[in-house]
């Protein structure tokens, strides 16, 4: 076993059960490197929902709540509030985050609670067998869109940004080093951080949507269609069709964070915010 795996994997949960060629292994590695580089294994607190990628933190030997479908974010919010020293990370799939748990995502972003949400996007409901997701491309074929998807996908990063996230980045499993850097940056960012990771699912989205269940082909597609934020800024809308814009998409420093606000109320001894503060915000 690789030394970093030896150090951080939850041995009692092994063997892992991801399909051959799944992107989740790349993300687990990036997560282990993140935790190792930052030296925060004692401070991390993981939550996840339901879906393949929700098992990512389960395989790390740290505290983890493997919760209900879509519900990892409110659980994470409470873990952060009960001890703001925690480094709270959520691993959620696109169905978890954009479908059943979409409401929780936007409200956590609005609150600017200092947690990091990593949304692993394979554009399909993989664990349940390949049904359409809120991220499935328009007109794509899946098990529940056998004649083509009549709906349009969410841009999760735009949703998070619009809802108030103060750090937003997108990478793919073809960018493991950049993903690791982004995770570190997101954890160190004070406020709600959102990272979308496009991740290949050869078993379901490869087979159903892209007509090729070869993980290498899917991986190469990520490489070939990714453009950096800087380069995308110089491209026309037409040129950007079919491209994946990767990099840090958004960051705002200094916006008030939820725990700071809540603990300020507490330290006021129940007196509450001053009249001036309240008036200023009205």
């Amino acid at each position: 076993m690789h030394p970093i795996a030896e150090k951080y994997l939850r041995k009692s949960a092994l063997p892992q059960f991801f399909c051959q060629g799944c992107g989740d292994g790349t993300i687990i590695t990036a997560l282990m490197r993140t935790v190792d580089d930052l030296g925060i294994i004692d401070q991390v607190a993981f939550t996840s929902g339901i879906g393949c990628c929700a098992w990512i933190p389960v395989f790390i030997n740290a505290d983890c709540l493997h919760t209900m479908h879509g519900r990892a974010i409110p659980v994470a919010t409470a873990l952060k509030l009960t001890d703001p020293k925690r480094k709270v990370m959520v691993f959620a799939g696109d169905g978890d985050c954009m479908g059943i748990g979409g409401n929780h995502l936007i409200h956590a972003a609005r609150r600017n609670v200092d947690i990091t949400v990593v949304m692993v996007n394979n554009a399909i409901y993989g664990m349940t067998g390949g049904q359409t997701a809120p991220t499935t491309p328009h007109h794509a074929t899946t098990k529940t869109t056998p004649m083509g998807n009549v709906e349009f996908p969410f841009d999760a990063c735009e949703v998070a940004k619009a809802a108030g996230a103060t750090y937003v980045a997108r990478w793919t499993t073809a960018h493991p080093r950049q993903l690791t850097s982004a995770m570190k940056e997101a954890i160190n960012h004070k406020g709600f951080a959102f990272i979308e990771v496009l991740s290949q699912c050869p078993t379901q989205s490869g087979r159903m949507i892209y007509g090729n269940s070869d993980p290498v082909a899917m991986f190469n597609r990520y490489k070939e269609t990714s453009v950096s934020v800087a380069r995308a800024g110089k491209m026309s809308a037409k040129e950007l069709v079919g491209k994946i814009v990767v990099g840090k998409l958004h960051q705002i420093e200094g916006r008030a964070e939820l725990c700071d606000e809540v603990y300020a109320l507490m330290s006021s001894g129940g007196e509450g915010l001053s009249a001036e503060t309240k008036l200023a915000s009205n």
Partner: protein
Amino acid sequence: MEKVMVIQGNEACVRGAIAAGCRFFAGYPITPASEVAELMAAMLPGKGGIFMQMEDEIASICAVIGAAWGGAKACTGTSGPGFSLMQEGFGYAVSTETPCVIINVQRGGPSTGQPTSPSQQDIYQVKYGSHGDYEVIAYAPSSAQEAFDLTVKAFNAAEKYRVPVFVMSDEVVGHTREKVRIPETLGVVERRKPSLPPGELFPFRAMPGSLRLDGMPAFNQGYNLLVEGQLHDDLGNRAGTQVEASARLLTRICDKILKHDGDLLDVQGRYLDDAEVVVVSYGSTIRPAMQAVRQARAAGIKAGWLKLRIVWPFPDEVIADLAGKVDRIIVPEMNVGKIVREVDRAAHGRAEVVSLPKLGGALHTPSEVLAAIEGRNDRASHR
């Protein structure tokens, strides 16, 4: 010093919760439970506690579960539709043996139903509302005083039995202002620390000779906890495909409640020694029943009353014993007649069991119950 206050039941629940150590509340506004959230918002920060108004009731129960593993005693309060939305979270809390308290100020249903009118229609939902097999603990206060006392007990039971515990209040109890005595000292069960250090503790293994878990570790104490909603082994690893491990866990989390230490039996009664007819009820419906029994006694009828302060687990033995001594048991409820089925089952044919349902959002009057005692209420249905 003992404090005497005149407060509504909803406030009594809040004061009981805080006195029992609640330091985290997450909720969502809903009538007739909104005062619970409002008072928590006003009182918790001054006590070093956290109040969160979440985006919905689903998030509220999830935050309560997160806070519990974060190390806090945590609680939510809701009613009707909100209680329905929380059911998924209740199941997760049962499966993961997460202590938490839920105050349900019952209103009439189904659906939007009857906001601001009382009911006891959720008394089965509290036990059966989430999918799968499980057991919970449910208290039913009938007064502001009991709202305080039983909320304290609910927190204590949650810590001891590691299960969601429900305070099944109703609109009458929630909104009636009456005298509450708050004693100077309360018996509060603190969260027990694990008896074993990290590396040695199996967080989901029952203590030797017990069906209950060892002390509860919190996150970031070195235990590397895996809290898993899927049926799991003693370490928390998924075991949903393992027949024996799954059956063992499911049996234990039910039996730890059903085979309790005796402390989950909480009934009060009067005039039972020589009673021939007894009114059995819970929550606010016991109040007109008590008045009716007094009137019946004054008229020379050998009547008595029995109040179930804990409805779940159901006190089978108490009802069986009672049924062996009396001729008739009358069960008034603000629903179609639910707990009467449990009474009938436990009575096992040894006494006549009469259902006295009342729908529409009003409490029974004493004269309605008295008429049933006298056998002249045609709304009463004999089982």
